[in-house]
C-alpha cells in the first residue's frame, strides 16, 4: 500500500533520469548535498495504529517532515518483509534519496538490495547488518525501562513485580533485566516474575498473564506487547502498569505508571540533516537517554512527586554518564555486542530462568 504523491520535483526528476537511474552514480549526479533537498521513504510492517511500534516511527516522521522545509517524506504501511524490495525499488525509481526500514524482518532484504543502489541511503531499525550505504539504528530503551523500574520499586507494596513478555529474545530479556535492576536498586526486597505469551500480539493472553501475575501477588506490571491490554487489565486489578514505545495513559487511567518511549525524531532529524549536507556515513546507531532518542512518559496521576524526583535523579546520573544500568550486576562492563545480541539470562531478583526460545 504505497502512498504516493507526485510532486513537481518528482516529475522533473523522472523526465531527466528516465532510463538513466543505473548511471546516476557514474555521472556524479547524486542527490545528497544538492540544493533540492532530501526525499525519504519510511516503511512499516503493520498498519499504523494509535499506539505501539509503528506509531512511534510515524509520529517521528511527521515531526521531522514539519521541521525541515527541504525534506519530503512518504510512507508505506502493512509491507511484509517479502514485498519490501519491490516497494523500495518503486520508491527509488520515483527518486527517493533515503529509505528507512523499521522492522527486523526488512534487514536481509535491505542488505541484499542496498549494493544495487549505491547513491541511496538505507537505514535499518533493530537489526545488526550494515553496508557502506546501509546504516542500522536502535534506541537504548532499556535505560528508560530502568527508570520505570526505579519508580516501580518505590511504588510496590507487595515487593512483587510482574512482567509480560512476548518472546524470550535478548532484546526483551535486556529490558526486563533493566526494569528489575532499577527496582532492586531502590528497593532490594523486590522480586519479579515473568510470563511469556509467545506472541507479539495476543490481547486475551496478555490479560490472562496479567491476571496470573496479580494472582501471584504482583502489584506493579510491565509488559512488552503491542496493545493496551496489559495496561488496562492491570488498572482493572488496581495494579500500576508500565508499558513501552508510546504513551498509554488513557488506557491506564488512575493506575497508569509510565511508558518507556522511543523518540525516533532525535535520530531521524540529525540523520536526514547529514544526508542533506552530504556527510552521511553508515554507522551503528545505538543511543539512549543522553541523545533523547528514548525517554520516559509523564507519570500517571497517582504516582507521588517524590517517586518522580527520585527517577529524575537517576535519569540525570545516566545522562551524565555517572551511572550505567548494568553497574553492580553480572553484566557490568559487557560490550555493546553482548548487550545487544547475546543477553540471555536474568539479573538477580527474577524468578525462574529464561526459557529456551
Amino acid at each position: 500500500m504505497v502512498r504516493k504523491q507526485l510532486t513537481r520535483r518528482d516529475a522533473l526528476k523522472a523526465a531527466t533520469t528516465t532510463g538513466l537511474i543505473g548511471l546516476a552514480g557514474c555521472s556524479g549526479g547524486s542527490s545528497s548535498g544538492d540544493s533540492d533537498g532530501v526525499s525519504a521513504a519510511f516503511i512499516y510492517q503493520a498498519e499504523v495504529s494509535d499506539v505501539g511500534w509503528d506509531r512511534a516511527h510515524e509520529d517521528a516522521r511527521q515531526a521531522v517532515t514539519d521541521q525541515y522545509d527541504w525534506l519530503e517524506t512518504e510512507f508505506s504501511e502493512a509491507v511484509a518483509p517479502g514485498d519490501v524490495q519491490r516497494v523500495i525499488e518503486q520508491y527509488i525509481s520515483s527518486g527517493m534519496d533515503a529509505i528507512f526500514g523499521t522492522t527486523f524482518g526488512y534487514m536481509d532484504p535491505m542488505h541484499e538490495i542496498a549494493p544495487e543502489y549505491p547513491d541511496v541511503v538505507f537505514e535499518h531499525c533493530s537489526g545488526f547488518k550494515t553496508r557502506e550505504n546501509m546504516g542500522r539504528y536502535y534506541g537504548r530503551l532499556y535505560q528508560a525501562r530502568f527508570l520505570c523500574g526505579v519508580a516501580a520499586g518505590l511504588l510496590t507494596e507487595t515487593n512483587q513485580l510482574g512482567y509480560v513478555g512476548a518472546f524470550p529474545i535478548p532484546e526483551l530479556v535486556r529490558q526486563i533485566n533493566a526494569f528489575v535492576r532499577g527496582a532492586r536498586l531502590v528497593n532490594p526486597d523486590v522480586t519479579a516474575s515473568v510470563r511469556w505469551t509467545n506472541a507479539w500480539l495476543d490481547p486475551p493472553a496478555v490479560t490472562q498473564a496479567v491476571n496470573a501475575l496479580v494472582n501471584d501477588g504482583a502489584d506493579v506490571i510491565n509488559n512488552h506487547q503491542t496493545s493496551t491490554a496489559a495496561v488496562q487489565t492491570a488498572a482493572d486489578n488496581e495494579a500500576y502498569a508500565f508499558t513501552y514505545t508510546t504513551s498509554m495513559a488513557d488506557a491506564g487511567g488512575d493506575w497508569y505508571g509510565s511508558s518507556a518511549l522511543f523518540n525516533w525524531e532525535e535520530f531521524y532529524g540529525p540523520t536526514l540533516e547529514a544526508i542533506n549536507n552530504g556527510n552521511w556515513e553508515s554507522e551503528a546507531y545505538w543511543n539512549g537517554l543522553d541523545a533523547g532518542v528514548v525517554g520516559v512518559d509523564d507519570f500517571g496521576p497517582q504516582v507521588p512527586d517524590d517517586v518522580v524526583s527520585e527517577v529524575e535523579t537517576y535519569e540525570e546520573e545516566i545522562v551524565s554518564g555517572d551511572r550505567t544500568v548494568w553497574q553492580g550486576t553480572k553484566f557490568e562492563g559487557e560490550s555493546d555486542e553482548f548487550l545487544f545480541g547475546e543477553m540471555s539470562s536474568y539479573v538477580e531478583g527474577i524468578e525462574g530462568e529464561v526459557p529456551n526460545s
Partner: protein
Amino acid sequence: MAGLVTGLANATVNASTVLILAGLGELISERAGVLNLGVEGIMLVGALSGFVTAFVTGSYWLGFGVAILAGGLISLVHAFLCISLNSDQAVSGIMLTLLGTGLTTYFGNSWSGKSISGFPERTLPLVGEYLVEIPILGTALFQSTVTDYAALLLVPVVWLFLYRTNIGLELVSVGEDPETADTMGVDVFKMRYLAVVLGGMFAGAAGAHLSLAFNEIWSASMTSGRGWIAVALVIFARWRPERILLGAYLFGLFNALQLYSQGLDITLGTGVPLAGLLNPVLNFVLNPTIMSTYPYIVTLLVLVLTVFRAENRELAQPSALVQSYSRELD
C-alpha cells in the same frame, strides 16, 4: 497453593467463553453439513463492529447486538458461495478469514488504543453472593460478565434446539442426508442458510465477548487463532454441544496452564531418581510454545481414537459435511 488453583480455575473459565460461543456456532453450521473455516475472520468482524458501536453509542448492549448481526451478515457470503453456488467450503471459509482479518485491520486501525467500559462482572441476583463463596470455583463461575453466563446457558439451549425442536432436527437431518431430507419436504437450502448465518452470529458474539467483556479494547488480529481452536474444538467434541463445554474447559485449562505454570519451579530435585533424564522432558513438556499446541494435539488424538472405535464413528461427524447439495438429479 489454594490461590494458585483458584487463579487457574478463574483463568480457565475466562478463556473458555470465547471458545464455547465460537465452537457452538461452528457446530450448528457443521451439523447442517457446512464447514465454516471463516470463524476467525467472523470473530474479528464481530469484535470490531461491537467495539466501534459501543464506543460511539456508549452502549455495550447495542455493541453486542451489532456484533451478532455483523457476524450473521458476513457469514451470508459463505452461505451464498457454498450453498447457492456450490463452491468449495474450505476455500470459501479460508477466504472469509483472510477477508475478515484484512478488513478489520484496515478499518480498525484508528480504533486501536481506545478504551471503552464494557460488560461489568456481576454476581447472580439473590443467590450470587453465596455462590461466590464456594471454594475454588465460586468466583470463576459466579462472578462473571453476562457474556460468560450466556455462553454457559447456550450449551443446553443449543442441545435442546438441535435434538428437541422440529427445526433443529430438520437442520441435523440436512447435514446427515440432504437428499432424503429434501424428499421428506425439508428445504435443504433454507436450513443450511439458517445454520451458517446462526453459526456466524455465534462467532460474532464470540468476537464481541473479547472486545466488550474480556479485553474492552480493539486490537488488530486480537482473536490470535482462537477461531481455529474453535474449529478443532468441534472435532474434539465430535459434533456434540455438551462436549463443547468439556472441550472448551480443557482447552481453556491448557491456555491458563501455559501462563500459570511459568511461575512454578517444576524442576525435580537431585534426590529424585532419574531427575537428570526427566528434567529436560519436563522442560520440553512445559515450554510455553509447546503448551500452546496442546489443543491441537488433543484433537488429533481424538481423531485417531475415533478411528479405532468404529461403533462411535457413525454418531460423530455429520455424513454430508463438506458436501454441497444440488437438487438437479442425474
